[in-house]
């Protein structure tokens, strides 16, 4: 087993993953607004058009329904389109194609047709952006049978999960934590870490309170765990990684030990992913829970103007506050 390790930012790891997928399978295509020469507004597709040509890296007209709808046709012809949606808030013009077509085509055809489409969406806030550029719409997709939803939290997962998503035969919405694009890690480019695309993972062991989170909030929660140590509180942090299907076995296992769960995400609280986690964990671990599941989330408002986003988004202190509330029972 050779090892070809490289220190990469999350964005560059995604780029490397896309490149690898395109090298491995000539049917893999990139499509979206500005993905070609510009390499995407976050440069995630940087250099791909130059190396793979305009037929495989397609600068599309400016219309998300068209991007998703033509990706359906390309997938039916045997291609594996990877669509980029420029920002979270701009996926909605393509929502009809995603919900009524992409999610249902396999079912509609009685299992005959497959749509191996990946839709990449940079999501989340914390970057000081204007309206529609900081949202967390993952629950809209997780509520939709027929779609799968995953999100990465670090460069290693970015690199491997993206490749795994592209080679999977189901349509997958791939959420990228945009404010973590510039976080770095050493990535082994050759050896798959072995964890499945649809598996969650304990990223820090602990014994007092379980914290389940994903995407941009994983780092925040890990920092909270360090801070909690000072107060002699041991937090177990779980990176959910897969939002649909959820893989809650590690959460159940953990909650059976800790008796307390805090779920953390940026998205609004009502019907956010944390709600489903709370409901299922309560169903599964009813007699183990010492406290109701605490949801530390964005509020049920539109995403606020950038100057006050820090008060909207969960941060280290709000995670700890949630931990306190869980422990107060």
């Amino acid at each position, binding site marked *: 087993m050779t090892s070809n390790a490289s220190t990469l930012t999350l964005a560059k790891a995604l780029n490397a993953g896309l490149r690898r997928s395109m090298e491995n399978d000539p049917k893999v295509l990139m499509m979206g607004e500005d993905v070609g020469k510009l390499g995407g507004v976050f440069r995630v597709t940087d250099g791909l058009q130059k190396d793979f040509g305009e037929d495989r890296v397609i600068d599309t007209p400016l219309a998300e329904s068209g991007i998703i709808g033509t990706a359906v046709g390309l997938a039916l012809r045997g291609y594996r389109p990877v669509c980029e949606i420029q920002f979270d808030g701009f996926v909605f013009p393509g929502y009809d194609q995603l919900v009524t077509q992409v999610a249902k085509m396999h079912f509609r*055809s009685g299992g005959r047709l497959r749509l191996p489409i990946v839709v990449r969406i940079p999501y989340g806030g914390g970057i000081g952006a204007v309206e529609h550029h900081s949202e967390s719409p993952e629950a809209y997709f997780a509520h939709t049978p027929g779609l799968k939803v995953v999100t990465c939290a670090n460069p290693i997962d970015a690199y491997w999960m993206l490749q795994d998503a592209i080679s999977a035969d189901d349509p997958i919405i791939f959420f990228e934590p945009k404010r973590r694009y510039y976080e770095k890690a050493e990535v082994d480019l050759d050896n798959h870490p072995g964890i499945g695309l649809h598996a969650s993972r304990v990223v820090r062991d602990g014994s007092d309170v379980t914290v389940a989170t994903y995407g941009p909030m994983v780092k925040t929660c890990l920092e909270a765990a360090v801070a909690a140590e000072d107060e002699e509180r041991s937090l177990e942090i779980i990176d959910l990684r897969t939002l649909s299907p959820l893989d809650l076995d590690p959460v159940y296992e953990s909650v059976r030990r800790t008796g307390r769960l805090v779920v953390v995400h940026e998205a609004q609280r009502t019907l956010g992913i944390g709600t489903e986690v709370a409901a299922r964990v309560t169903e599964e671990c009813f007699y183990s829970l010492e406290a109701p599941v605490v949801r530390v989330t964005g509020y049920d408002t539109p995403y606020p103007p950038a100057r006050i986003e820090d008060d909207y988004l969960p941060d280290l202190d709000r995670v700890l506050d949630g931990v306190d509330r869980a422990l107060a029972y």
Partner: protein
Amino acid sequence: MTVDTAATSNRGAADGEPELVQLLTPEGQRIPHERYDALIDDITADEIRGFYRDLVLSRRIDSEAVSLQRQGELGLWASMLGQEAAQVGSSRALRRQDHVFPTYREHAVAWCRGVDPAQLLGLFRGVDQGSWDPAQNNFHLYTIVIGAQTLHATGYAMGVQRDGANGTGDPDRDAAVIAYFGDGATSQGDVSESFIWASVNNAPVVFFCQNNQWAISEPLERQTRVPLYRRAHGFGFPGLRVDGNDVLACLAVTREALQRARDGEGPSLIEAFTYRMGAHTTTDDPTRYRLDTELEHWRLKDPIERVKAYMIRSEMADQAFFEQIEAEADDMAERLRRECRALPDPAPDSIFDQVYVDTPPTLLAQRDEMVRYLDSFADEEASR
């Protein structure tokens, strides 16, 4: 201005009407056409008889399905009565390697592509959502969300380009894609976006709009104030209007458009001007919104009658032929009724198997939950 007068103003009278490609008059007279005669000069009497057979048999499928719905065997049916020529003419222009993206009313196209008529019924009976294999006849599933399939067709055509499967000059290789949709569908953003994608990418796709002049209860004037075929020009590709009740004209213009696509010359829009002679679907009541006189007017333009008249006029067929087709239709109808009733209901838990290629454990758990629950009744019954 009432909807009524608006509805009439764009129809009926000939003045101001856009040119309509027509090769057969409603009376079955073959009229010459400078441009399009050449496109069908290879058509033999045998083929004409074949078209007639297509028209009659597909109409029979349609009318049988309406009856089956009345008898409670189908939940719904969307009749294509009146639109047979548009569908047969256009689909007989297809080659084997061409690919079709229908909406939900293309029963005659399905017939011409070789889809088993009984397979069309599953969706309307409620036993599946489309049971034919699109790969088998290059005939995609019906799409109910208005306009959505036009983007699929365009993307598919972009795939054809990427496969090097058009513009090579090889008649067995070069492929085109055809998307069917209605007049109402032209208002959906998706349809305009598909025009843009097709144009910008020069994709080998033919947009075939069956303008049957109604979108449920809404007359054409609620969707456009100029003839629909003109929309193509604004997007940078050719568009024309054809007599949608003239099977030969539909064949000719579609052949031309498909060949353009196969040759790498890009998309076209065909507006087949026709009329929905039946209700929108079996649940619709058209007497609420349109006048009988309109229907009477269009009966005179019946797409089947004019071919029959043409064949008689040009001695291509005799009474025996017509009787033979009728007999064939009767046999097919009989088989259709039988097969419809025999269509099996799916197993309730089958729904869990077809959501994903790779079914997640959480969904398998729901399947088990359902199975256990259903079994509990079996147990109950058994224990009685």
